[in-house]
């Protein structure tokens, strides 16, 4: 079984160089070529026998094998020989690697948050970094989210590049004042004088019976804030890539991680790479229906995809990754091809990412739709503690299968 990676190699390095040279007052754009990586994503297909193809035509490959799992399963790993390029790690290690590499690359990059230093981070994302970089660069803060997030913003305004960790994204509700008013607004209200190259990250989402307050999805609360970007990682590959891109970005970026995805394992490239902050990720090309998802729900979707394929359907699965702004190009191309859209998200139904996405698709691609958009979201309830209730709160693969069958009638 071939494990497929999205290797963007040199093209990504080129586009990242250009993204760093952006000046808000001077729109000098790099030549079309550097953006062409979006129009025809190149895939490095690594086969189990160790040979590689650089595949520039994803269309042609659809007839070949597809990923049944976004995550390399045990069989894949054992089949892979040590001559395979790249190295294997877990998602939280990928985040750490990305963070560490950026801290080595730029001494202005620093981390602040609760228990990020000596404790190594409550999800081990910053493990070992305090020993390596010192207590000031990996700062253990008191429990004062609003103030230390504001402190991060002040440090960003005056020349540092902080990465603020919310121990749980839900805790950042206490920092809402700073995120909305200052993080999002100050570049604008100062007339462009101050930039806020801050990254705010942390785990959110529904875990295993963590209770209502530890199971929140903040992406919908933060979505309307002007001036920020939001991305959600879902694999070790894009976790590291998005972390690095977020740190290098001149904009404030909020990186949403998920409590249940930290132990995902994947083989990622050795060389330096980033993932474009504004792009969505094609997980599985298909013909019949476009399924848009992000974060943990990607795995429920892929599980449902197995069932769907066995039933004869050919779903196209896109991990939108960029929650703000939406990648309307990738999404639009898919809608134009399949004419049917299913959104699967963990956000609440009311005012969630899916609601916004439904509106954006309807506005831009209405003529291409053969059926109303179906949006599967979590129930509008505070996440219950009981395991059974919690399971019914989030979207399960069976519901996804049913929704696709309904869409494709």
């Amino acid at each position, binding site marked *: 079984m071939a494990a497929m990676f999205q290797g963007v190699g040199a093209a990504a390095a080129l586009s990242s160089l250009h993204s760093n040279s952006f000046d808000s007052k001077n*729109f000098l754009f790099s030549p079309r070529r550097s*953006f062409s990586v979006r129009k025809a994503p190149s895939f490095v297909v690594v086969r189990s026998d160790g040979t590689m193809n650089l595949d520039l035509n994803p269309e042609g490959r659809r007839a070949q094998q597809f990923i049944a799992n976004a995550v390399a399963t045990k069989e894949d790993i054992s089949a892979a020989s040590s001559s395979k390029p790249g190295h294997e790690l877990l998602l939280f290690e990928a985040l750490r690697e990305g963070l560490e590499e950026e801290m080595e690359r730029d001494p202005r990059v620093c981390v602040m948050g609760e228990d990020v230093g000596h404790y190594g981070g409550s999800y081990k994302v910053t493990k070992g970094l305090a020993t390596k970089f010192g207590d000031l660069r990996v700062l253990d803060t008191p429990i004062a989210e609003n103030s230390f997030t504001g402190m991060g913003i002040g440090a960003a305004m005056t020349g540092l590049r902080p990465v603020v960790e919310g121990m749980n994204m839900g805790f950042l509700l206490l920092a809402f004042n700073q995120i909305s008013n200052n993080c999002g607004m100050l570049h604008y209200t100062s007339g462009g004088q101050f930039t806020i190259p801050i990254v705010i990250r942390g785990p959110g989402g529904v875990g295993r019976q963590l209770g209502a307050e530890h199971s929140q999805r903040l992406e919908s609360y933060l979505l309307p804030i002007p001036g920020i970007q939001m991305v959600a990682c879902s694999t070790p590959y894009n976790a590291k890539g998005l972390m690095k891109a977020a740190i290098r970005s001149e*904009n404030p970026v909020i990186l949403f991680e998920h409590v249940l995805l930290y132990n995902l394992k994947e083989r990622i490239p050795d060389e330096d790479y980033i993932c474009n902050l504004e792009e969505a990720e094609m997980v599985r090309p298909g013909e019949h229906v476009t399924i848009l998802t992000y974060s943990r729900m990607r795995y429920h979707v892929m599980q449902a995809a197995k069932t769907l394929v066995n039933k004869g359907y050919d779903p196209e699965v896109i991990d939108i990754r960029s929650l703000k702004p939406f990648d309307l190009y990738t999404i639009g191309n898919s809608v134009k091809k399949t004419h049917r859209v299913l959104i699967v998200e963990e956000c609440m139904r009311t005012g969630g990412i899916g609601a916004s996405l439904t509106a954006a698709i309807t506005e831009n691609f209405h003529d291409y739709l053969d059926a109303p958009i179906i949006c599967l979201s979590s129930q509008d309830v505070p996440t219950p503690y009981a395991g059974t209730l919690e399971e019914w709160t989030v979207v399960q693969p069976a519901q996804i299968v049913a929704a696709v069958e309904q869409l494709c009638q």
Partner: protein
Amino acid sequence: MATAFSPSKFAAQPFPLNTTSQNNPLTIPTTASPFLGSTRKLIRLSSSSNLNLRRRSGTVVKENKSQSTPNLLITKEEGLELYEDMVLGRAFEDKCAQMYYDRKMFGFVHLYNGQEAVSTGFIKLLKQQDFIVCTYRDHVQALSKGVSARAILSELLGKATGCCRGQGGSMHIFSREHNMLGGFAFIGEGIPIGTGAAFRSKYKRKVLKEADCDHVTLAFFGDGTCNNGQFYECLNMAALWKLPIVFVVENNLWAIGMSHLRATSVPPIHKKGPAFGMPGVHVDGMDVLKVREVAKEAIGRARRAEGPTLVECETYRFRGHSLADPDKLRDPAEKAHYAARDPITALKKCLIDNSLASEADLKAIDKKIDEVVEEAVEFAEESPVPPKSQLHENVFADPKGFGIGPDGRYRCEEPKFAEGTALD
């Protein structure tokens, strides 16, 4: 003789709880022995303790006469600089009021009349690379820091030539050049920003090894802010990490219509400093020389990496909270009491009495400032308003943040983006 420099006579009187200024204005704020107690605390940390104690409890005038050689706190040049800065602040604010009532300026405008000694006393000791952060009552601190009157006035009129391109307004004055970090509408939210700037100074010194980075941050805010969580959280963090910051409380006794005494369980704000491990000092905020002396001490502490200081300046705003505030709750007797302690009149008297400047010198400064303000008005009125194309600029430092449109181009690449209509 009650001069503006008389020491506070309030020390012995007990705290009147639950009073408004209708009762006895003279027994109100910041009274009680902590005044001297906290000053003593600061003095213990300073090397020239005896001398400072003498200066703080006396007046400049009295000391001068009691010593054989003049031992003035300022030179003539410094005195004139302080005078000019305060007059600029006063004239500018008065001009704002005039333009507001002439319906040329709109929105919420919060004026600083009466509090000039705090801004001038502190900020004139700073270097350009030092940072300041304020609340919405920020015009005069910006002027003291060096932002030009024309840039601020243009901003207040919403013109494209304003310091923030007309996008910030009265409550959001920013200047990268002069390291003015804002201008914040929600009280308390600027204090963490200032704490971050102080953190950056320490980071530069310790991590980036720029040994000469001794930049100090001043955070200005009022008595109302001192009941807000962010204030306490930042006192804690600043003391914990010994950040080079001075927390300057402009205690003008009123948060719109809420008297400080009605809102605060323990009114002396400077007392809260030692609770967090930093010196807390109370100073007469109507006396620019006293403020300056305390400021020297506090800023010096920060520059020497000895940590933060909390300075409570007892001051008063002569006008309402904003130009929209009818200001009916404050007792006229209280207002009269503080009007008699006008910091500008007091400094003028001090300079003349000590032969540091003549009436003519000061009048020349008055005239010069009038011209500066008039010129600023002309410039602002003649400046253009921002065009529609400016609407989406500066939302993102990197405009790729607007995302990729359906046609595959980044939204900011679309031709209509420059017209401000691409995102309709």
